[in-house]
């Protein structure tokens, strides 16, 4: 067994790290370092072995750790997610991959009725320290069953933590924190932030990543751009879009503050409220569905605390309540694109 000291927690990306990785490589590095450190960590799922994960979530892990610890499974999500639960109950630290979050329908009972409830139902006597990794998001014409985010659905249900990295730095640090956490953590990676060579990508999908292990604390948002005119609260790929729009609008004299939530459960309400208190204007950008979701939760957070924080009505850019369409013009009509974000900001600051 290899052991290393648990490093001090670092909350924000260092500016000094010269080494740059894609989000996918940063995620894999976080997994590999924890597998080195802790022999109870293992990875299982569909096409996570020789293929290396359809979205490069496990590239090189099989070669490095062998088939005993990087295990391809049958297409039996209930069985292998449940297997991970049972192994976690017995003290192992499994990481189980649900290839697309859209597939949760075939195995959700194991996740929300078992993984997420055992600790509570046992009165705290049984812990379930496991990670579920899952790919989310659209933008590449994969249609209604392979393009959803659905983090609002998961975050609605008690008992599992939800993390959603948007940068390589956070992808590694949140993975490390998720594996070390004694609770079930759902780690939702957007295909569009992974830096995949076969998909359009934002330059932000590559960034500085320290080589040593570190944790990004679960439940803490990051103000990724400071500004005084309006707050954009968002997560995942939409952080990239929001930062792009903020840079454009800076030329027009509009100064946006961008909050990357990074975790949806627990939700860092304090950072959101502090930013809204500063700017007085709020836009929530969410690639999940509009109704009953993240954007409503952020609105409620402000309304329950002090509706007077807002100088103008808040706005939401989310997927209208429609399945994700296939045809490119239709899909991009419903996704939270830069155009929709820019338009919403203009309405917000003019109001």
């Amino acid at each position, binding site marked *: 067994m290899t052991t290393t000291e648990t490093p001090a927690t670092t909350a924000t990306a260092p500016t000094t790290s010269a080494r740059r990785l894609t989000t996918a490589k940063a995620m894999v590095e976080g997994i590999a370092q924890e597998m080195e450190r802790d022999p109870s960590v293992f990875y299982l799922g569909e096409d996570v072995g020789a293929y290396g994960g359809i979205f490069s979530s496990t590239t090189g892990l099989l070669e490095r750790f062998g088939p005993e610890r990087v295990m391809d499974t*049958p297409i039996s999500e209930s069985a292998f997610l*449940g297997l991970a639960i049972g192994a976690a109950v017995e003290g192992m630290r499994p990481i189980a991959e649900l290839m697309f979050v859209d597939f949760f329908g*075939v195995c959700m009972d194991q996740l929300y*009725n078992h993984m997420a409830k055992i600790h509570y139902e046992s009165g705290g*006597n049984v812990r379930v320290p496991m990670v579920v990794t899952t790919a989310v998001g659209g933008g590449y014409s994969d249609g209604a069953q392979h393009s959803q985010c659905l983090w609002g659905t998961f975050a609605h249900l008690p008992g599992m933590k939800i993390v959603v990295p948007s940068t390589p730095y956070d992808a590694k640090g949140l993975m490390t924190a998720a594996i070390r956490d004694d*609770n079930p953590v759902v780690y939702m990676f957007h295909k569009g932030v992974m830096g995949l060579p076969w998909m359009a990508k934002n330059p932000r999908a590559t960034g500085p990543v320290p080589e040593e292990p570190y944790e990004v604390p679960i439940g803490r948002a990051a103000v990724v751009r400071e500004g005084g005119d309006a707050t954009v609260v968002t997560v995942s790929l939409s952080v990239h879009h929001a930062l792009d729009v903020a840079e454009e609008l800076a030329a027009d004299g509009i100064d946006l503050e961008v909050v990357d939530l990074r975790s949806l459960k627990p939700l860092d309400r304090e950072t959101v409220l502090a930013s809204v208190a500063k700017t007085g204007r709020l836009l929530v950008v969410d690639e999940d569905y509009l109704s009953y979701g993240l954007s409503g939760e952020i609105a409620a957070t402000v309304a329950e605390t002090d509706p007077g924080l807002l100088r103008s009505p808040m706005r939401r850019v989310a997927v209208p309540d429609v399945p994700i369409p296939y045809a490119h013009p239709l899909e991009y009509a419903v996704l939270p694109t830069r155009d929709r974000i820019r338009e919403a900001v203009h309405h917000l600051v003019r109001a």
Partner: protein
Amino acid sequence: MDDSVRMNLYRTMVLIRVFEEAILRDYHADKRPAFDIGAGLVPGEMHLSAGQEPVAAGVCAHLTADDAVTATHRPHHLAIAHGVDLEKLAAEIFGRETGLGRGRGGHMHLFDPQTHFSCSGIIAEGYPPALGQAFAFRRRGTDRIAVAVTGEGAANQGAFHESLNLAALWRLPVVFVVEDNDWGISVPRSASTCVTSNAVRAAGYDMPGERVEDNSVEAVYEAAGRAVARARAGQGPSLIEVHTLRMWGHFEGDAQAYRTDLEGVPGRDPIATYEQALRSAGLLDDGQVKTVNEDAVGRVEAAIDFAKNSPAPAPETATDYVFA
């Protein structure tokens, strides 16, 4: 079969029956004259296991507290046979802070890390976690095993078949047990299941399958012995279906108007049958029957008293234990 084994099977079955009769009594005691499922010291759905004692006694006789058992919404017999602490079990059923889950779980959601016992209220969904327990046991180089129990209705669920395939594929030390009590709530197995024995389904997963007829505790014991030995030896999983008996309703309050076999139920009581067999074999007489029953009553009533005298959880702690 060794006489001491036979006597232990009998004692375990009696302990289970006495426990279930005590829960039955206290469950209904304060639900009269009008039945209100949410009222009383023991509220909620109550699925009691009278008649299914042979499954629990026969299988768990081969296990130690280091082995895992996952049960169903009808879990008490398996919990007791596997050695779950009777006081903590009773206290959980009564919703007390001293219960297995500090009153957060209830009778369908029992978790005991001491005996690696758990159950699921969702049909067939207790099977997949058992695979993981077996996986962890084997990964650590032990010969510990997991026993996964469902009812016959679960054999038509996806999780059942996914689990059998994965367990066989990875040669996991699991014993799958199907309690066929003939009824999926009100639906007879003839209306739900295309095969007359779920044991034949084992062939589809390249594992031994065996059906035990007549709710015979000794036949269960023998079949389970073969399956447990195979699992401990690293030879992979097995499937056992036991044709057992649901003596009472699906849950308490179930009038069972749908049930066409009720008349014959009292004559099929497996404990009475086994008691007679042991008397005939010269192992039991009136005095020993009395002693076994009195011992069981003493243990069960002490557990019930413990539960009743334990504090209820404080309302302000309702949101505790969501996260570790």
